[in-house]
């Protein structure tokens, strides 16, 4: 939880897509947040599943980056709950994990994740993946339905 996230969440900065970044490892979370903001995204952070659910409801992000190995509530459970809540169900969830063993990605998809990215993942690669999802036609529709306007990506 950062003050920056709170301030950006309150002060809607126009058409910048909002990303909810969930990761319990502060260095990685901050690195991605910094780079995402540098790349033109508005970033909201959470460090466990429970917090992620709160932030998702509060801030209605355009996309959620979800680390799976989390304290308090893990990423799988958090994703299942997000997809079960009609307020947050349309938001695409990208699973982000350092575990590359087989079966992880299957479990993530079962829980409701829309995409899967293996760490280590360079910040620019992550941004590419996010833009790919947000630019997809169904994502645009979701965005339009939710905010009433078309969100245009930057870069």
């Amino acid at each position, binding site marked *: 939880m950062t003050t920056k996230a709170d301030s950006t969440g309150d002060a809607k900065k126009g058409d910048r897509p909002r990303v909810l970044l969930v990761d319990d490892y502060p260095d990685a979370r901050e*690195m991605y947040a*910094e780079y995402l903001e540098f790349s033109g995204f508005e970033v909201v952070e959470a460090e466990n599943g429970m917090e992620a659910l709160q932030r998702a409801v509060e801030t209605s992000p355009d996309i959620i980056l979800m680390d799976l190995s989390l304290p308090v509530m893990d990423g799988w459970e958090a994703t299942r709950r997000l997809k079960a809540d009609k307020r947050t169900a349309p938001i695409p969830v990208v699973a982000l994990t350092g575990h*590359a*063993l*087989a079966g992880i990605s299957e479990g993530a998809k079962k829980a409701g994740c829309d995409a899967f990215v293996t*760490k*280590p993942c360079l910040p620019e690669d992550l941004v590419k993946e996010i833009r790919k999802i947000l630019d997809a036609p169904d994502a645009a529709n979701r965005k339009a339905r939710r905010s009433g306007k078309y969100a245009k990506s930057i870069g």
Partner: protein
Amino acid sequence: MRKSLLKTPPSGLSSRLAPPAAAALVAVGAARRPATKRNGSAPYTGVPRVRVAVEETSTEEAEQRGARVRLLEGFVSRAEIADCAQVALQWLRDVAGIKQSICLIRPSGEGSLFVVGAQGLGSASMSFSLSLEDWNNPLLSVLNHRKEIFFPEPHSAADRKRRPATPFEDEPFHAVPLGVTGFSEEPFGLLLLGDSAPTSPELHWFTSVFSQKLDQILRQEALTEGDRRQGRERSLLYSIINAVSDPILLTDTEGRLLIANSRALTLFTATEEESEGRRSAVRMNNMLLSSALSSKAIEETGATRRELLLVNPIDGSDLVFELLSTVTEDPRQGSGVVSILRNVTDLRRASEEIEENYRKMRVAEAQARAESDRLNLIIDSVADPIVVTDAGGATSLMNEPAERLFTIPKGASAIEQRWVQSNDAHFSSFIAGMLVSADQRRVGEIGLVDARTGEAMPVEAIAGKILSEHSELTAVVTILHDRREAIEKAKLYEQLKQASDELERKIQAATADIAQQNELLRRQAIELEQASALKSQFLANMSHEFRTPLNAMLGYTSMLLQGVGGAIEPPVKRQLGRIESNGRHLLTIINEILDISRIEAGRMPLQLSKVRIPELVGEVKAELEPIIMRSKLTITLTLQKDLPSLYSDRQKVKQILLNLLSNALKFTHHGGVTITARAEKRDRTVQLSVSDTGIGIASADQEKIFEDFRQLDNSPTRAYGGTGLGLSICRRLAQMLDGRISVQSQMGHGSTFTLTLPIKGRR
């Protein structure tokens, strides 16, 4: 013919078929000499009184008159009493229906009445007589009172006692006196009529006529002493020939039957009432007899004995007779032939039986002899000595092997003689024991000596007693069995068994040892497996823990290089570049360790899809483009046209190709690298080759490079980086995809790595 005779019912016939001999004799005579011409008008010489009486009878009784005429005619030419009597009795039978009758006459000067004629009674009736001295005989009262008497059937013992003894026995009969009425003389004869014949006026007529005729003959002939004797003898003769059980016949020169006794009659006569079978038998017997008696036959053989085969009319059986025929010369009646038939059937049968028995006996004897010979052969062929001893203990039979033990051979030395004597003594004592014991069978061991070598010869003796029908001991049979071989075998067997047991013990010990070692190995294998699983898990965990900080490091470096935090000076940028490349190298190492761990842990699933090779090769080349640019090597692609697509795991094929190409780039300093792809239609595979012009690999090392953590240069200052896991992973991945990787190389002349994959992918 014989068959039909056999079918003839024999029961109840004999009494009917054996007519009384006297009647039969007369019948034969009548047949020969027809007595009367029924309708003829023969000159009448009878008594005029009778004739008047006949004329006085009414026309209605013409039949009765005819009958009287027949009797009178019958008497005409008869000059002998017997003849007259027969005519009279026959008439009584035919006209008055009196079937049984006897006529007795007392010759003058005789004290008895003798039978002169009889009818319908057994042949014994001819020998019946009545003495005048037998005063108590009721029959005499008939004569004394000149009055007929009826003797009814007796109803009690007293009745029977009062009755006279006659051939009628218990049958009722009339006794009628014969004599001329009105004469003072007493009656000279007696007529006994069977059954309850009525004393009709016709009988009175008959009696008077018959009496007159008899009286006439008696008076005319005035019987001489010789005649009387003849009468007696004749009666006796009839009795005698009928009493003979052999058939006796008198025939004339033409073979016609004159006299036959009762036995002969059963063979040669039959009435119309007899059965067809019986009559056929009789006809045949007559034919056989005629031919045997033909004058020619007699002339040829003389009065000798001949055999005659006849059929028994009673039961159809064969009868064999000995026929004795003698020609008799009778000046009055001409010559005839007397034949006596002696039944030799039983004799013949007995003789045949004796012959048969004798033959059987000879066969049995031959069989017994053959049996005995065979037994001897068998006994001699038995290798074991066999001795048969009689009840007294003396040897009665022994076979050859026994002889070798118990008889002293010719020219035997003193020691050899002693051996045999010793054997004999031992055996005798065994037999003696057997003889006194009650055992039926005895088995024992006798210590004999081999009579040829003197070697000890223990034998097993099996003795059995042979008993007669009366359970008396007749012999003892002893079989001796040489035990030497058996003992030797037992010894060998014991040794063999010991060796076998020893071997078994050793095998068991070895087996137990092996089992123990197997168990140890199994435990070690489990431990190793567990250790390997732990290692894999540990490596997987560690690689995750390594990647998390590495992620941050690489991320920040990348950001700095991109100028996220502001512009940077070129030297700094170069330094950041070093950090980044080393970080990437570290990441590669971690990823490779992770791959090996996944493969070993079996957690590397395949994701099969269509793989287009040109596209894949392009991607691989593009991914390594920065390195290619730096190396200044020429990269050549030789892809066969219309290559088939693979059905395989795209990610893994790509990983293998990346590895092969990066290796080629790493170990090649001059020249170039060629990537070739071609399909092998024969075994439906695709071959992807990466050839370089690099340093090459010695043939001795070409297999080692596929082992884990293997780099040919293991020195700390080695020229090439890398974990040494790349090719090991490639080979394992290729195997997972049912393919293989091979290498061809020559030191200093480059290497060619070839990946062969099936077009269809995994089976």
